């Protein structure tokens, strides 16, 4: 999952990157508001972690600006001020959630999961597709109660497709959600990941739409 981190503090930014990577987030990190808006206009991010205390344009302004430009991406605010007005201002400016520094890593991860769940229109924490069951909390995948071990990027592709069932996702869309700015992308890496997923899951869920991309059909009971 592609995540934009907007944090001016080097130490915290680095720590957040280190913390989020192992949890299937592709973290791109900018250190001020202008760069955040530029990145958003250029690429698709599925979630934003936004610090309020930024140099120059502060977090509130960035938030207002991106909402006024109709970006609907979920935003988690990081604030070091516990005054009520800060929280209210943040939420009213269009934030989806906020977290007071210093925070617990588990809480941060839980809030991020809740945000992507809500963005995908799900209320339950699990993703079910027939006999396939995914628990984002520990990134476990099972089919018919048999655990399946997926690599980090394979898991990310599967989640991305499952959160958009019935829609065809282009190569570019999938790649954007898999790779950050610092990652090297092999031209056929996506095909390799999809190939591995197909091998590991007993049924062939992923349908290739030639010349367009990939999709997973919406689940309906008749398919069993």
């Amino acid at each position, binding site marked *: 999952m592609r995540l934009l981190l907007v944090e*001016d*503090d080097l130490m915290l930014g680095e720590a957040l990157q280190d913390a989020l990577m192992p949890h299937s987030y592709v973290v791109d990190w900018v250190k001020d508001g202008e760069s955040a808006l530029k990145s958003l206009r250029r690429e698709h991010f599925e979630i934003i972690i936004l610090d309020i205390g*930024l140099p120059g344009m502060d977090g509130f302004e960035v938030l207002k600006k991106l909402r006024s430009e109709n970006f609907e991406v979920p935003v988690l605010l990081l604030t070091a001020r516990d*005054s009520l007005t800060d929280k209210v201002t943040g939420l009213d400016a269009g934030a989806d959630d906020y977290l007071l*520094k210093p925070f617990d*890593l*588990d809480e941060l991860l839980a809030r991020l999961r809740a945000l992507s769940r809500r963005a995908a229109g799900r209320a339950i924490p699990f993703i079910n597709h027939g006999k396939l069951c995914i628990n984002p909390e520990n990134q476990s995948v099972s089919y018919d109660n048999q655990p399946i071990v997926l690599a980090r990027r394979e898991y990310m592709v599967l989640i991305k497709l499952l959160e958009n069932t019935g829609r065809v996702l282009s190569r570019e869309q999938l790649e954007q959600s898999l790779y950050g700015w610092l990652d090297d992308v092999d031209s056929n890496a996506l095909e390799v990941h999809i190939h591995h997923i197909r091998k590991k899951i007993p049924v062939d869920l992923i349908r290739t739409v030639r010349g367009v991309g990939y999709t997973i059909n919406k689940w309906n009971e008749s398919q069993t």
Partner: protein
Amino acid sequence: MSIRRFLLAGLLGILLLSFVVIFLFNRYQAFVEVGELYDAQLAQSSRILQGFLNRPADEIDFDHINTALLAATENYSNDDTHDNDNMRNDGGHKYEHKFAIQIWDKSTNLLVKSPSAPLYAIADFKDGYSIKKIGDFNWHVFTQHLPSNGYWVVIAERADIREEIIEKLTYSSLVGPLAGMVFLAFGVILVVTKGLQPLIDLSQQIRERNIDKLEPLVLEKAPKELIPLGQAVNLLMEQVSQDVERERRFLGDIAHELRTPLAAMKLNAQNGLYSKDIYSVQNFLIKIVRGVDRSIRLIEQLLTLARLDPRALGEPETCVLGDIAQEVINALSPQQQSGVHIHVEESLFNTQLNAYPDLLSVMLRNLIENASRYSPEGGKISLAAEQTANNIIFALTDQGPGVSEQQLHSLGKRFFRERPADRMGSGLGLSIVARIAELHQAQVSFSNAVPQGLVVKILFPLANANGDS
């Protein structure tokens, strides 16, 4: 002290005092008037008798006079049982029996007397008025000598009559003033209470204020005497509320600055806990140590800022800028000194200031550390001083990147960093410098050097400099 109590006690006291004065004056007046009236009456009665007696002795009908005297004072010897009746039913008066009359011949034999009179002479045989004590009572006596036959007419009147009348007159004359006084007293209480109401209202308004609610007092209905007071309070509250706001913002800034490294340290600690190999654990530990170092530095800076309390400074001393700069440079860690060349110009050693040396050294250390943090490898930091007619100007120039024009004015604000926090500064260094300058009435200005670098100038007023020693 209560204004209300003072006004009430004062005004009511004055009222009471005036009442006493009126009372005493009335009594004196009654005493004089009644006395004259009764004296005149005595004299007149005496003259009436004189009219009957002023003829040769053989022509005077003493029996007749005796009967008349008897009739006049009949049944009214010295008993007071009828005192309560104001008027006798036959048209006489209760005071009648309190008169006594004696008529003596020239050889002082008692010829006639009223029953109320004693047998001995009431007074000395001497023309005029006198006061005598007979029995339990004082008597006013009028004695008159008749030249034609040498008789003496003595008419006496008991003094208690006069006293009673004086008393009655005095008290009856006080009823009006007393009623007026009571009315006045109520009026005073009412007016004082009403007059003090705006003061009570205002203090109620002030009581409702507290540190979270410092809105200005409403002075529209206040009397004009209270408006300056109200305005002064409003001004004070505005200053306090600005101070509170500034403190709050500062606390918010501190919270931000302390919580950010804490957040990073906590994340790194948890990252370390979740790591599976010892190398990445070590890596996270190193990051935690860096975070701790940064927090320590921040807290030290905060404490420095908090200790810059003008009340705790003591007296300024004569300092040589160059000596202080040299001490600061010698105390820098090798890490801070590495890669930069710090040059103290000779002018600094010729410049003396009347200042707080400890503060100057904190100021110079912050400036030098700041410059060295932003200096490129091998960069030069130069310190110079210059004395003009009115000022001593200290200037520190580095060869760092400088700052953009719009950021120049933000320098010196708390927690403002020239760049995103890529370096390990606390953001407090320049605000400490600004505060120390303020304590020396000095001004700090920033400008960009050519071709690159930042120039910090501190302008000490010469009144504060020790130019003549």
